[in-house]
């Protein structure tokens, strides 16, 4: 007799043996099960195209349940909107095909642009709304009276597919997003600790082996933040732990955002110290930094889990408490050593700037470690800030979105022109696939590579299709046989989609195979039609690929220029925007800019390095300007620092339209500001702490502006270099 205990044991055994050994097998099994469920139900209901339901399953299936739910919702929404738009168009222009196609092109353009503005699943929803109009609207032009039926059938088929995919992925060996997220955040913490420990003040150049401080880890962290954010957004539909953790995750992300930026500034500052200032300064800061490294270690290695991180957090707090006394010693030491040299003033300023940044870094590191540690206790609120963390909204580049829309429109126009003028039998298929290809991959990091993979997938899919349609399907007598016929191709495609690097090939196999497989209400196995359709598919995908190459938005000079324009705008915003929001808003925009352009950075060319440098130096300047503005607001009207507002205005003007003259003006006004601070009046008027903060902020700002590695090096006359030395 099988009791519940037996069943439980069986489940546990399954979990322990099969499951960890081969999640891929489980995934393939889930895809097969869900697609055959969808197939069976659609056949039972006698729907027109059971393959649409199977295609839906194939598209939304993912190894994590939360991803399936989120994608399902957007697929449903996109389809509904697309179907509604098709009804409207058919109702208005059924007889006028030029007007009809024109409106269709505009609709697809709008949807493609929308898919560039939003990301991930939302973006996919837009793509769907766009190409559904081809699937529903184009057949409807041939017989308009059937439009409503076609639309309703499509929605029903998609619903069936979504339900099957959702049920299977939630019920059978569900894999929660939370496990991925928690693995990724603990890896991030230990990676970041490694990075902090690896930095050697005084030897940053030697460590990185090049002139510049290596920026790639920072870039990786930037993209990481966004991926984590989207994962956690998807997990909102999952039920278990994920939802409880979401708020904490947001806090963790914003804390990490701050600490990684500050770390980068610190790194840059230390490098500049090496280049320009007295080695003693680097030495003293290096000593302070050594203690921090010790605080980051847990029993000799970096923290691997959140419980270890809580120990580390306590160590960091102890370090932070001991910092003032350490600082006192260090300052005394510095003075002693400096007495032997001249120019003590500027060196002391260098030292104070470094210390200020180091203190900020330690504060933020502590906050980050505490937030991470608080993940260990599920309900604890310790270490969490009470205020709402910033949301990672999206910014978009109007021009990029417009060009993406244009690309979709052009593909459609070319294919429809071919359809109409050549009287092309497979025109509808070609248009549909061309529009899918030219919109679906618009937001991918490097579309032309993705389309190439998709083409390979399409070829493999066509091969499977040929075997299936002409040798196997005619012999399939019942449902079991039908399943056996379809299983190999689906299993193969599912397996390919689990390989991260080749996922698009799998998608290509799925889409082509399920689009043309011959089991409709009536079996169609006509070789001529098949070959025509296959040629149409290949042509459509190739054309889309050519369009991606022609209107290339992710690579080269153009995207660099867009980036630097956007960065300039951002700095102007940090100078002129509302002060209360400035910091959060700037961080958010910077990160999303970085994410958007990071696709182009994998080549490692010289231009890439410049772009990364530019992004990071903008972060520093933005921060420094905002810090300055905050200080100015604090001292208010009794400002003895007349040059303060001038400096902010100057920086804004310089970035609004960069030129030698403006750069010189800014640098001059900063020098004036520093001189102002040295006068007796300001010494009397300003508290010692605030005056020091002013000094260090201005010094930081100037040193970034003058920085050799900064992109604006061309604006800097040579004698500045001498002056800083």
């Amino acid at each position, binding site marked *: 007799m099988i009791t519940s205990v037996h069943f*439980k044991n069986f489940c546990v055994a399954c979990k322990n043996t099969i499951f960890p050994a081969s999640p891929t097998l489980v995934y393939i099994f889930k895809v097969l099960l869900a697609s055959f469920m969808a197939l069976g139900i659609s056949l039972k209901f006698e729907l027109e195209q059971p393959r649409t339901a199977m295609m839906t399953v194939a598209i939304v299936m993912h190894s994590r349940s939360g991803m399936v739910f989120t994608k399902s919702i957007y697929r449903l929404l996109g389809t509904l909107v697309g179907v509604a738009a098709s009804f409207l168009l058919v109702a208005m222009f059924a007889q006028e095909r030029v007007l009809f196609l024109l409106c269709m092109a505009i609709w697809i353009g709008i949807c493609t642009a929308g898919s560039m503005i939003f990301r991930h699943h939302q973006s996919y929803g837009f793509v769907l709304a766009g190409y559904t109009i081809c699937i529903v609207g184009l057949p409807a032009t041939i017989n308009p009276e059937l439009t*409503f039926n076609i639309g309703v059938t499509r929605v029903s088929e998609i619903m069936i597919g979504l339900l099957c995919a959702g*049920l299977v992925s*939630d*019920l059978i060996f*569900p894999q929660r997003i939370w496990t991925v997220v928690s693995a990724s955040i603990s890896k991030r913490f230990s990676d970041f600790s490694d990075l902090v420990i690896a930095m050697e003040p005084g030897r940053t150049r030697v460590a990185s082996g090049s002139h510049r401080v290596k920026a790639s880890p920072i870039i990786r962290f930037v993209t990481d933040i966004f991926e984590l954010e989207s994962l956690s957004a998807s997990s909102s539909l999952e*039920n*278990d732990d994920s*939802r409880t953790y979401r708020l904490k995750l947001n806090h963790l992300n914003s804390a990490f955002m701050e600490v990684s930026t500050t770390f980068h500034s610190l790194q840059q500052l230390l490098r500049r110290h090496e280049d320009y200032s007295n080695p003693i300064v680097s030495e003293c800061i290096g000593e302070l930094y050594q203690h921090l490294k010790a605080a980051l270690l847990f029993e000799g290695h970096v923290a691997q889990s959140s419980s270890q991180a809580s120990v580390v957090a306590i160590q960091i707090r102890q370090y932070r408490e001991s910092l003032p006394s350490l600082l006192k010693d260090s300052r005394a030491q510095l003075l002693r050593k400096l007495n032997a040299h001249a120019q003590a003033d500027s060196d002391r300023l260098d030292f104070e700037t470094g210390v200020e940044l180091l203190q900020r870094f330690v504060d933020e590191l502590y906050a980050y470690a505490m937030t991470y540690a608080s993940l260990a206790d599920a309900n604890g609120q310790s270490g969490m800030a009470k205020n709402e963390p910033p949301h990672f909204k999206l910014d978009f580049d109007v021009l990029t979105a417009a060009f993406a829309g244009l690309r979709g429109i052009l593909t459609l126009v070319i294919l429809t022109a071919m359809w109409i003028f050549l009287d092309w039998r497979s025109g509808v298929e070609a248009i549909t696939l061309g529009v899918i290809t030219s919109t679906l991959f618009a937001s991918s990091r490097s579309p032309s590579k993705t389309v190439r993979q998709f083409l390979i997938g399409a070829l493999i899919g066509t091969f499977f299709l040929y075997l299936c349609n002409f040798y196997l399907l005619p012999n399939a007598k019942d449902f079991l046989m039908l399943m056996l016929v379809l299983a190999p191709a689906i299993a193969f495609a599912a397996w390919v989609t689990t390989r991260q690097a080749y996922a698009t090939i799998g998608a290509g196999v799925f889409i082509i195979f399920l689009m043309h497989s011959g089991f409709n209400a009536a079996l169609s196995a006509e070789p001529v039609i098949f070959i025509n359709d296959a040629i149409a598919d290949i042509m459509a995908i190739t054309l889309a690929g050519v369009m991606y190459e022609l209107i290339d938005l992710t690579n080269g000079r153009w995207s660099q220029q867009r980036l630097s324009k956007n960065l300039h705008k951002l700095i102007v915003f940090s100078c002129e925007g509302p002060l209360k929001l400035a910091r959060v808003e700037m961080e958010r925009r910077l990160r999303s800019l970085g994410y958007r352009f990071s696709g182009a950075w994998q080549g490692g060319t010289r231009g890439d390095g410049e772009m990364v440098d530019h992004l990071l130096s903008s972060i520093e300047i933005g921060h420094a300007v905002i810090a300055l503005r905050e200080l100015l607001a604090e001292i208010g009207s009794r400002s003895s620092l007349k040059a303060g507002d001038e400096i902010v205005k100057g920086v804004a003007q310089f970035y609004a339209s960069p030129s030698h003259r403006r750069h010189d003006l800014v640098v001059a006004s900063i020098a004036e500001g520093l001189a102002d601070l040295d006068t007796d009046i300001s010494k009397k008027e300003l508290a010692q702490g605030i005056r020091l903060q002013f000094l260090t902020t201005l010094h930081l700002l100037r040193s970034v502006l003058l920085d050799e590695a900064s992109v604006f090096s061309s604006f800097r006359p040579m004698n500045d270099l001498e002056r800083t030395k």
Partner: protein
Amino acid sequence: MPREIALFDALVPTLLFAFLFGAAMSWIIDVVFTRYGLYRDIWYRALFRLAVFICIFACCGLLVY
């Protein structure tokens, strides 16, 4: 109860509304369970959610037919 309801002159099966109602109800129950941590005592949460949904949907369906 009528088996089909005219929605803007398109006949929609009443079961569809039963389905939507069931989905809404089970979502509310789900939120309540998560909020008060009642899922602790349930072995297979996903299965439980599905079962709750099927119960509600089936009851509504019986009302229609």
